[in-house]
């Protein structure tokens, strides 16, 4: 149903499963794969079970959800905005979330749940502002994608200014906390965070997949989309909000993880998926794989220190993206 090239899908799923098992098995204490499987099924020794179930599994699940959410958000935005450079943080999500988190840090809040909530609220406010600015600037309320892109950039620049002002005279601990938060990490994985995130990613992702045909047509332009029967303004607005929800949920749970939402849709398109329903499915799978792998690298490349996840995704992503560009040219 999804695509004729079913072996592509089988391979992608296999790679995802292998990367997840590697992610659970690898760390400061190595757990043999057989023990991983046993612990997942509820048998084996108690220390393996504790490591697998309480430490590694939540982290892998969190990373997978973040990757899936960002990649789907990016794929939907690139199609709807008709721009291959569009990415999930574009509509002011990253700036707004960072402002929310930094303000929380500045008030001395260190509970990760509250910081996540502050980040989500900041992202939501920024996206709504961007949409309102675009609406006010667009002629007669007809949202031109370029106006929306500009609005997102402006809101982002403003958010940066707010962050710099808040951090300029902040105590070192606040700065360090805020900086680490902005670099992104799956280290705070609790089943509670995962539950909230999973709900947003599955719900938002399913809604985008439902609207995927609209995105196919919106990618042709506003007038062709209207000519083919899409209620352009309503449909595009819904897609923007859903994409922003996905991005904001991931940012609240793990800070900024760059590049995933930008490159993964290109990789999947390059594999031959052009319709947005399979493109969204494929992006979720590849995005999840990429972030689980990146988190594994972040934990293990320079032990015992951890590298920032956002930096690793970018380091992994840049050469991949360059290779894609070369092939596409």
């Amino acid at each position, binding site marked *: *149903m999804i695509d004729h090239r079913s072996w592509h899908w089988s391979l992608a799923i296999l790679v995802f499963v292998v990367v997840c098992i590697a992610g659970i098995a690898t760390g400061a204490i190595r757990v043999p794969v057989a023990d991983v499987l046993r612990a997942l099924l509820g048998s084996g020794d108690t220390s393996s079970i504790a490591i697998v179930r309480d430490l590694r599994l939540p982290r892998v699940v969190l990373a997978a959800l973040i990757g899936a959410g960002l990649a789907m958000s990016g794929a939907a935005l*690139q*199609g709807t905005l*008709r*721009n*291959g450079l569009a990415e999930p943080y574009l509509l002011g999500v990253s700036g707004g979330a960072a402002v929310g988190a930094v303000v929380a840090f500045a008030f001395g809040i260190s509970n990760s749940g509250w910081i996540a909530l502050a980040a989500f609220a900041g992202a939501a406010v920024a996206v709504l502002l961007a949409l309102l600015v675009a609406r006010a600037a667009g*002629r*007669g309320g*007809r949202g031109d994608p370029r106006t929306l892109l500009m609005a997102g950039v402006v809101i982002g620049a403003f958010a940066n200014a707010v962050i710099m002002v808040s951090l300029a005279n902040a105590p070192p601990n606040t700065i360090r906390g805020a900086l680490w938060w902005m670099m992104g990490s799956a280290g705070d994985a609790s089943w509670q965070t995962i539950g909230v995130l999973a709900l947003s990613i599955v719900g938002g992702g399913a809604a985008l997949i*439902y609207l995927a*045909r609209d995105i*196919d*047509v919106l*990618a*042709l*332009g*506003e*007038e*062709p989309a*209207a*000519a*083919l*029967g*899409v*209620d*352009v303004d309503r449909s595009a607005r819904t897609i923007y909000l859903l994409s922003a929800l996905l991005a904001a949920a991931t940012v609240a749970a793990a800070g900024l993880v760059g590049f995933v939402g930008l490159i993964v849709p290109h990789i999947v*398109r390059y594999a031959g998926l*052009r*319709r947005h329903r399979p493109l969204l499915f494929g992006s979720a799978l590849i995005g999840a794989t990429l972030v689980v792998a990146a988190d594994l690298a972040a934990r293990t490349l320079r032990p015992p220190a951890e590298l920032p996840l956002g930096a690793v995704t970018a380091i992994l992503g840049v050469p991949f993206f360059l290779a894609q560009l070369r092939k596409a040219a």
Partner: protein
Amino acid sequence: MTGPMIHFEDVVVRYPGQKTPALDGASFDVPRGAITAVAGPNGSGKSTLVRALLRRQPLERGRIAIDGNDLSHLTQRELAQRIAVAPQREEAAFPMKVGEYVELGRFPRLGLWESPSAEDEQAVKRAMLRAGVNEFIDRRTDELSGGEWQRVRIARALAQQGNALVLDEPTTFLDMSHEMSLFELLDSLANDGLAVLIVSHQLNLLARFASTIVLLDKGRVAAVGTPTDVMSGPLLESIYAWPLVVTRDPAAGAPALIPLRRRTVS
């Protein structure tokens, strides 16, 4: 027995913040089985007409009816099932196979979860054959020449299986033979019973192929009628504000416009 496929009645459209309306009381009909052409200088309201038809611009006054149904009572999807529009502006961001592109014409006839049925595939195949693009099916949309691209766009519109086909400036950037063959295609589609509405600058071609020309000037219908009625020298000269003569083309006898150099009349 049946009324016109598309009926414009006293249509007024004004862009926000503009003093003068872009369309100012335009009325005319687009019947089935014929080519109706809309012509006029730049800024005369031609593209606004298409945007109003697509409901991308609200009407300040008047009404548009599709096959007797008021446009405002149709959903966007119902509109797309009745008339197929190939707008002037189209910026497909991501290339795809021509076959996939034409299949998008089935969008208004598919449920959100429905996969294309055998009937949809048949409709796509027929549309591609009709537009003469069936051999391009596996080519990429960004590898087509200008003429091929216009035909592929028409194939997509035909796949919609509406009763009207609306084309905004379909021959821009086309050379003479591609332009002629495109008009021949539109002519044969009209002969099949489609209502064809074409917005174009090519008055001489419209004179050869259209049964009715609607001449717009500053948002108003300056003239409407057969090419012979509408293409009068003095009228065109005043609308285009350029010296010209109208003669007969030696092959078909249709009116033909020849713009003059300024100095030849002064």
